[in-house]
């Protein structure tokens, strides 16, 4: 403590202001509301209790689900990296005919996910799916429910999660210094050796960041296991979400969520150790752009083309079917029996031509834009600070920023409401509950850990020596940031912005508790329409909303990201 105080005295006023501002932000919005809630879990009526842990340990179902979550996360860490590497190499490294077209298909998971993605795959492989129907004609004896369980969930989620590779690995790959490849070639290295010894090692920081996200998403898997897992492969997150909404069972949700959160932070910790051990850096100052590699062996070349196009089909058929089914009625969607007469435009007209229907879009777009921008800016500042040196305070900040991963979003929302429903000194006497600011705060909070991890990975691409050179020539820190750092990380920052924007656009769990009555966000409106008790066509409406969301996501992606890199 004395040590820190001594250091504090040395730094100038600006620095002090920055540090105290950061400390206040972290404490007021991340630590205090969440710790408050965790504390309540273990201290009921003033006494310490582990009843939640006991109840959870008694449940065979919960223990199995928890185990399955870990199995899934571990499997996905391998399968997603394999597939992701493959599609990135096909679209950006090897010379493949039509690679630009292929990449559009591979990128399709950027614009949809969750329930919609899982239903898309069920339209193909489910009991009344296209492929299942075809197979049933050939093998009448086969089980129509073949696409179920661990394998099926892994399959769907593997394809769903490669979006991380498409965005972060592609860009990093393009930043590789081509001279290193040429040098290896001139020394007689084979394509395989170049790939495994020269190209991929340089990308390791990106792999670390991506793998953490895969593990995290795998642990938190919800829709795919619920819809495809069947009785034997259920995971823990649906249970967490379910129990976090029940007053009597909230403590179990907190405990389960803490287990997942600790596992996540542990993964992070391990990967940090590995990361510091293997650190590859491209040393060239004058980088040459990557030239696509030709595959010399004709057999390998054909094999690569065939697999690239097969995988392309696996990617695009579900999304095409979603678009097609969004033009049919609820009966067709539920049974899969598609006929000419089942097509209708009514789903679209009933949603789009309501006078009040545009407002939720506007609300969500504004909230998502503001939140994605603010969290991006905040985290960029903090990440720069965290990387500027090593100190105890820095690691505290680093881990504090992870707290939103410790709790499900329902509980984060509850923590905020309960903490800021009275005037508190911490917020200078302002009440947040019931104001439109509340949802914005919530959105920013849940996006902090993801943004931090990705921003960190992006900052790896910045060459320190350039910064130092600028510094030695007397450039001011902000000038260095603007002219040297930002141009390098810009594609990553924009990608993070779009991913956050798209994810927040249709958020439900957090929104439903925090939104202001006058500003209904899209996720809430969607869910309300989808759960209509009278309208049996509700399922069709879900698809229509999804298609509209895909459209917005595609527009935002191509505006912000595609224009710059000309890939989408």
């Amino acid at each position, binding site marked *: 403590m004395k040590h820190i105080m001594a250091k504090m005295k040395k730094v100038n006023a600006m620095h002090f202001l920055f540090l105290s501002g950061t400390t206040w932000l972290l404490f007021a919005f991340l630590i205090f509301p969440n710790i408050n809630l965790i504390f309540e879990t273990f201290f009921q009526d003033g006494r310490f209790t582990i009843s939640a842990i006991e*109840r*959870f340990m*008694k*449940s*065979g*179902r*919960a223990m199995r689900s928890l185990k399955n979550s870990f199995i899934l996360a571990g499997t996905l860490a391998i399968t997603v990296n394999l597939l992701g590497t493959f599609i990135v190499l096909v679209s950006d490294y090897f010379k493949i005919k039509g690679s630009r077209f292929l990449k559009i298909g591979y990128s399709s998971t950027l614009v949809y996910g969750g*329930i919609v993605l899982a239903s898309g795959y069920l339209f193909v492989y489910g009991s009344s799916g296209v492929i299942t129907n075809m197979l049933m004609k050939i093998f009448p004896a086969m089980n129509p429910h073949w696409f179920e369980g661990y394998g099926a969930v892994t399959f769907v989620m593997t394809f769903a999660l490669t979006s991380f590779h498409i965005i972060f690995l592609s860009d990093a790959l393009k930043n590789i210094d081509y001279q290193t490849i040429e040098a290896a070639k001139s020394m007689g290295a084979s394509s395989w050796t170049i790939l495994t010894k020269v190209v991929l090692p340089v990308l390791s920081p990106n792999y670390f960041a991506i793998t953490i996200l895969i593990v995290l998403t795998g642990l938190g898997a919800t829709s795919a296991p*619920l819809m*495809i897992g*069947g*009785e034997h492969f259920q995971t823990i997150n*649906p*249970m967490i979400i*379910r129990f976090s*909404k*029940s*007053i*009597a*069972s909230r403590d*179990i949700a907190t405990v389960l969520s803490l287990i997942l959160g600790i596992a996540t932070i542990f993964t992070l910790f391990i990967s940090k150790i590995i990361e510091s051990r293997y650190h590859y850096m491209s040393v060239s100052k004058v980088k040459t752009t990557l030239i696509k590699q030709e595959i010399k062996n004709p057999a390998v070349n054909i094999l690569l083309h065939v697999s690239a196009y097969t995988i392309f089909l696996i990617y695009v058929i579900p999304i095409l079917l979603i678009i097609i089914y969004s033009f049919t009625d*609820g*009966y067709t969607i*539920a*049974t899969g029996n598609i006929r000419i007469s089942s097509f209708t435009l009514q789903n679209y007209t009933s949603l789009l031509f309501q006078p*009040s229907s545009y407002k939720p879009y*506007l609300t969500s*777009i*504004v909230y998502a*834009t*503001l939140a994605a921008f603010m969290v991006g800016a905040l985290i960029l500042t903090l990440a720069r600070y965290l990387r500027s040196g090593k100190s105890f305070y820095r690691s505290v900040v680093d881990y504090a920023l992870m707290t939103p991963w410790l709790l499900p979003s*329902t509980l984060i*929302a*509850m923590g905020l*409401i309960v903490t800021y*429903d*009275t005037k508190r000194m911490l917020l200078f006497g302002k*009440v947040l*509950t*019931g104001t*439109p*600011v509340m949802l914005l705060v919530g959105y920013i909070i849940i996006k902090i850990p993801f943004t931090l991890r990705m921003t960190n990975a992006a900052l790896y691409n910045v060459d320190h020596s350039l910064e130092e050179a600028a510094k030695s020539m007397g450039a001011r820190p902000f000038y260095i940031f603007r002219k040297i750092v930002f141009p390098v990380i810009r594609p990553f920052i924009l990608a993070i912005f779009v991913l956050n924007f798209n994810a927040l656009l249709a958020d439900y769990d957090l929104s*439903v*508790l925090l939104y202001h*009555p*006058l500003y209904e966000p899209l996720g*809430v409106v969607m*869910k*309300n*329409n989808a*759960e*209509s*008790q*009278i*309208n*049996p*066509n509700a*399922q069709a409406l879900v698809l229509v909303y999804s298609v509209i969301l895909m459209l917005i996501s595609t527009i935002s992606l191509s*505006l912000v990201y595609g*224009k710059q890199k000309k890939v989408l």
Partner: protein
Amino acid sequence: MKKWICLIVIAMMLLTLPACGQKEGSGELVIYSNSLTDGRGEWVEEKAKEAGFTVTAVQVGGGDLANRLIAEKNNPVADIVFGLNTMGFESLKNENVLLEYVPEWAGEVEEGMNDKDGYYHSLVKQAILLIYSQDVYSEATGPQDWTDLWENPAFHGQYFLFSSLSGGTTRAVISGILVRYLDENGELGVSEEGWEAVKQLYDNGYIAKEGEEFYALLAEGTTPMGQMWSSGLAAREEQYGVKSYYAKPAVGVPYVVEQIGIIDGSSNIDEAKKFLDWFGSAEVQGKWAEEFYSLPANKEALSFAPEYIRAIDESLTVQDIDWGFVGAHIEKWAEKIELEIMR
């Protein structure tokens, strides 16, 4: 292009931001409800306006609604809540969210539905049915009561169950079964026999995956039996082209009653009371029933309900359920079933 996007975004922000002002005793009412879909929200706002109220109707899904109200109780945003069933209102009452007020029409409501202590009063009732497809069963061969589902091996694997107990209908079904086995000394107030019955129910049923639509499976014949609320029947029978019978157990069927109450701490208490008197009156509830095919709890509004719903209602007896007791236990029951009983 970029300038354009910036301009649009800034314009949107300007449009949305400056409305942070909080209403304070302004006479404007904020109503939370889980029963505002399918045009009900607009209907309430419009009719209330004609009657001289300024109302903002906010739709929040069932489970989230109670959570939100309880979380906001120190600084409530809403003045009135309606649409949750008795179980939901019991937990609001226990959490001190509600203000005691007996509206003028309280006496017109069927006996035993309103809160005895005057915190909430009844608007709409709904029979929770066990239905079975006419394609597969006749009234003689179909199940006569929920207990038949596990006691008769022919029904095993043929009935649809949800994998979570978060829904109001599912909770009503489970309550209807468990209240038959109440035992002061049993776990959570239910005898061992009762827990065994629920275990049998889940062990022998078809537990649905997320996204599976009960009516589609009913129409296909995959699971020709399952739970349904009375006013949802007609629209689905038409949509899926399948007719079904419903069981008429000797003990009666659970009736779920949607209630209304005033939020304690509302800044517009007088206006809220006036609204309650107006909204629950036979006239307004009659129109509501006519418009949205519901079964009013107000006896004087009953004649406005559609013929087929009244016919269902008249053919059934009401199961005797102490909803206060159920409300105090249902969360724990649900947790036990989801953690220990389901496989």
